[in-house]
């Protein structure tokens, strides 16, 4: 099972993330999003910066938590200029997520990054379960 694959969308970019568990699905979705930003082969170089993430939202909806999780990571990338490449989810449920993540400080303007993600969308978002585990298609506005 591939952790994620890129999906074609006329105006925007999508990924289909997979995971044998929901935790793995969320981690792979994060990897997929950063692959959209900088390409699948990109390896960020530099000293590691650790970030702790805790989201508590009264949503009672796992898909909305998935969007909140990816949006939080995208926000760290946009505002703190940290390219995240390591994700470890400590706990996850319909109302929140607790995770540790790390990445490298990079200067966006100087780097050859090519895709600016404006936002993570809710478009046709559905976490699906099959014999192999879980999968979900996520469309980004770029």
């Amino acid at each position, binding site marked *: 099972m591939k952790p994620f694959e890129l999906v074609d969308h*006329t105006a925007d*970019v999508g990924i289909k993330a997979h995971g044998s568990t929901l935790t793995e699905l969320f981690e792979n979705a994060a990897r997929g999003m950063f692959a959209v930003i900088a390409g699948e082969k990109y390896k960020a170089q530099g000293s590691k910066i650790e970030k702790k993430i805790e989201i508590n939202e009264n949503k009672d909806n796992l898909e909305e938590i998935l969007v909140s999780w990816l949006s939080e990571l995208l926000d760290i990338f946009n*505002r703190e200029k940290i390219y995240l490449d390591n994700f470890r989810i400590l706990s996850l449920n319909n109302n929140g997520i607790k995770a540790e993540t790390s990445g490298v400080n990079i200067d966006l303007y100087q780097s*050859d990054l090519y895709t*600016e993600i404006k*936002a993570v969308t809710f478009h046709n978002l559905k976490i699906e379960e099959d014999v192999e585990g879980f999968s979900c298609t996520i469309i980004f*506005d770029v």
Partner: protein
Amino acid sequence: MIMAYAWQDKLEKLDNFRWKIPQSYKPGMKVPGLIYASEKLLTGIINDKAPEQVANVAFLPGIVKYSLAMPDIHWGYGFSIGGVAATDPENGGVIAPGGIGYDICCGVRLVRSDLTLDELKPRLETLVNALFNNIPSGVGSSGDIKASAKEEEEIFLKGAAWAVKKGYGVKEDLDFTEDRGSIEGADPSGVSKRAYERGRDQSGTLGSGNHFLEIQVIDEIYDEEKADIFSLFKGQITMMIHSGSRGLGYQICDDYVKGMISCLDKYNINVPDRQLACAPLNSPEGKSYLGAMKCAANYAWLNRQCLMHLARNAFEKVFNKSWNSLGLKLVYDVAHNIAKMEKHKVDGKERLLCVHRKGATRAFPPGHPELPEAYKKTGQPVIIPGDMGTFSYVLAGTEGSMRETFGSTCHGAGRCLSRSGAVKVCAGRSIDKELFNKSGIIVRAKTRTTLAEEAPEAYKDVGEVVDVVHGAGLSKKVCRMRPLGVIKG
């Protein structure tokens, strides 16, 4: 193809430019859908999922007449890109942040000059390089025009007028900007801290993706009288700027789409896609979004004003003359991702409606009170950018758009290939070299991938799109511009 056939059966051809999606297509649609397209464009449209999204938008409470789609329609998320929907606040009408999009008030401005092609040609490359160096572009780019937190609030309220006050332009520029570059009713209290922060250092930056600055020459005039009033002539050099509200707009849209999902339950709203999250215009959530959206709209107008200022500086350096003596005057600036409260006649009665334009341009007719005095006779200039290898157009607004599309028309070529699809098609090719060798167009871009993603093949034929809105009477062709030099993010 199965899907295409399925759609062929569902669509009702009204005439050569109009295709109706009957309200019976899907239970829950409150009005029918209406797609403006030629037979040729329709084939592409139905192979995409865009018609399904046109039908989904028809679910919005309070939607009036039709869920409309312009000929440059393509699959978006929630709303299709190229969609227009008007909702009536007196009839439970909603506002949907997804019906405006993340890049709030993304739009284009056209700047004229006194220069002719012969005068520009020897200095074209120098000019393109100067523009590329003068204008910050690329992912997350930040610029030299910076504002403090207090000033940022002033920008939200005053938009392009703030830039003019700071010396980045003249008062006359505001006369030729939609809403004079500062829409009334902006309310910074609905803008999150995150949104503030993302907007802070990005004014006067182009951004990436499909945003650009282009040097062009007018190569065809369709309406001499209107062109003359717009001060446009054949062989004239023009400059087009396409950009939006950058990180600020993205964050505001993101905040409110997330927040309004809970409004669906609260106000008992049934929509088939969560990306269509919305709230009644008269609700606290709806009002708060409208106030915040206007902050981003003003920011976008300020941004394009600053970009024009930086570009004028580049011209001054290259030609060693003031921009004023080079005749670099603003023709017009239009938004193509916005919602506006506007008066429209419905069944003979005037109503105040919220017109969502997502990838659609306002096209007000001659005599409309919103138009600058100079354009009262012509109708509003509508600026339609093409892809970087083909033409762009200036059109003029008409009564037809007021009658049928709430004063709206198309906004550009519209994509026909996905970004990764375009990269695949362009693998191993050098798009900038091709453009130069084939058409003499000089292109400067931050990355090669942007060039491939934005290659001419990725877009529909803009001429075909413009011919549909012209033929359907939604706006009339005035002139056509050919690209000479392009700066991409």
